[in-house]
């Protein structure tokens, strides 16, 4: 592998892989740690070959113990390294909850700035890959309430790189979420060299004046497809915002769009009750209530554990592009 300075078309796996590679290349304080990141190169082959190039100290196969993967990374970060820790699947992040919420997110605060915790935790999340109850979960809403913890969930290869670089450069802990169904599905141009996309900035992926759709991760791509079809077939103009960062979230972009379209729809695969959409909706109900011409709509995963293994169960859980189109149409027509 080599660091490239040219724009290249790649998928999300390759974007993450390239960025990690460059981070290891450019900064001797960085290291990658997690289960099976070494010879196997991570279960999605994201770190394949890294061990040979950077050695076992910097590409560290850990014991099977998530609390320690994060906790040890916290200690490294407090002591000046720049660990990039991996949780093999988001479903297995729960044992590390204490270290993320109770320790990493509070290190700077409780020491009043004496210690800092520049730590990235990467983990693949989301369903639609026959991952069943144990390899499909979305975890963003279990963490987004936590003061001091940044969370990003990029959807395109260029954002994957820019936000991963931003996360690695960030002096505070960042939870970096990779929707595993986008890994090989989503391709796009990725600039060469080091660049960052600021954490906390959304992207308007598509302009429109009849409805604002806010989403992130896999659903962004479906929402764009739905909006494109609605424009082509029915001349409806739907604006689609890709949140990119879950915390901090981009209030200005959402409000500006909602004030223009006067209608808001939030789409996420994660369960509805208490999900990210709740906070977005509440923020708008607080700041732009009288700008709205329709009730705020949340199109989300149902409130059951994500997601049954049998195909019909998974299909029932995931939000289809068709369902998106239907709700968008209803919202525009409201």
């Amino acid at each position, binding site marked *: 592998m080599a660091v490239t300075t040219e724009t290249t078309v790649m998928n999300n796996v390759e974007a993450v892989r390239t960025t990690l590679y460059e981070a290891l290349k450019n900064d001797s304080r960085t290291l990658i740690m997690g*289960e*099976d990141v*070494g*010879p*196997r*190169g991570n*279960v999605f082959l994201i770190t*394949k070959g890294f061990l040979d190039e950077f050695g076992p100290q910097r590409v560290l*196969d*850990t*014991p*099977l*113990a*998530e*609390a*320690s993967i994060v906790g040890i990374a916290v200690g490294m970060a407090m002591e000046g390294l720049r660990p990039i820790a991996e949780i093999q699947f988001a*479903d*297995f992040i*729960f*044992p590390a909850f204490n270290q993320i919420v109770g320790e990493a997110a509070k290190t700077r605060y409780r020491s009043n700035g004496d210690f800092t915790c520049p730590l990235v935790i990467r983990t693949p999340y989301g369903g639609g890959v*026959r991952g*069943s*109850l*144990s*390899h499909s979960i979305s975890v963003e809403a279990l963490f987004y309430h936590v003061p001091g913890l940044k969370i990003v969930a990029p959807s395109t290869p260029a954002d994957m790189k820019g936000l991963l670089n931003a996360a690695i450069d960030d002096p505070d802990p960042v939870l970096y979420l990779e929707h595993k169904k986008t890994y090989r599905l989503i391709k796009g141009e990725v600039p060469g060299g080091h660049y960052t996309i600021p954490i906390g900035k959304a992207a308007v992926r598509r302009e429109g004046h009849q409805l604002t759709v806010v989403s992130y991760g896999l659903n962004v791509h479906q929402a764009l497809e739905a909006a494109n079809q609605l424009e082509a077939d029915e001349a409806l103009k739907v604006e689609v915002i890709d949140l990119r960062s879950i915390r901090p979230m981009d209030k200005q972009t959402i409000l500006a769009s909602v004030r223009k379209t006067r209608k808001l729809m939030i789409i996420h695969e994660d369960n*509805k*009750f208490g999900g990210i959409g709740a906070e977005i909706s509440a923020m708008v109900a607080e700041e732009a209530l009288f700008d709205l011409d329709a009730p705020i709509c949340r199109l989300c995963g*149902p*409130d*059951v*554990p994500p*997601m*049954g*293994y*049998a*195909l*019909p*169960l998974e*299909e*029932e*859980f995931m939000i289809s592009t068709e369902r998106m189109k239907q709700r968008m149409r209803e919202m525009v027509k409201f």
Partner: protein
Amino acid sequence: MAKAPSAHAPAPAAAAAPHHELSKEQLRAIFRSMLLQRTVDNRGFQLNRQGKIPFAAGSEGHEAVQAGTGMAFQRGRDLLFPYYRDVGLCMASGFPTIEVFYSLFARAKDNGGGRQFPSHLTKKSAGIYSFSSIIAGHMTHAVGAAYALKYRNEHDRVAICTFGEGATSEGEWHEAMNFAGVQRLPIVFVCENNQWAISTPQEKQMAVKDVAIKAAGYGMEGVIIDGFDPIAVYDAVTTAREKAVSGGGPTLIEAKCYRFLSHTTDDDDRTYRSKEEVESHRKDDPVPRFERWLVEHGIVSPADVEALKKDVLREVNECTDAAEAEPYPQASELYTNLVEGAWEPWQ
């Protein structure tokens, strides 16, 4: 009954003659279990290659541990807390073969409703507890259930909890072991040490040569056995079981075995271990080894073996076909059985 000769990990505990005799019938049953496990395993990988199922986990190399433990498990009395590699153990403990295939095909008739990955079996009526996929998450459940047995003075019952050597690194493993030790609970821990956790070898997992060494920190006996020898396994589990029911507390049994296949159908073990390593263990393959021993000791004839293999294949074929013909669960099943009654986030 003399033990099956073993070149594999000669184990001190198993070196002595077993204390628990096995009848010819039991020995044959163990052998059939092992054959069944291997055949089911192969079928899973086959169905995956055929594109009929998206996922399967094999357990080749674990047949002796699982058949031996299953024989020691007392049906209708004991509680089993298996992990995802224990399809053979579940079958040897009373889980119907056809239901394994319901699970593999995620059919509506699966006892878990086709909700979980294959190999995550559940069957309360058989004493087989549900495993979540979260490694070591079931350890404390086994301990809690063992507490319940003791609490209710059900003296002739034990919990049997299995796990891989990788699981021993988890904090929850430690907490479960510690509590079981403090309370001297009626529980038998069986570590199926196959030397690998996906691509992570034992030496990156722990600083000790034997998992059994860890028992001492919990005031518990640690026993090492040859996990390719079903008789040694049966003997060790039965001994631990007897100790547990007589109030002697828990035991940690380490059965040294090997994982012959990739971790699951999603893995490719050639990326992290050598063919030579795998082959060096293959020569001790517990299934043909036990077969040889049974024939040598006149417990089965070569003809018996052939008949048995045929019968097992017939069973597996029938189960495959029958399960495949079953329907998936309905989409509406996504919303049931979350809590008693309907689950409404808003009431």
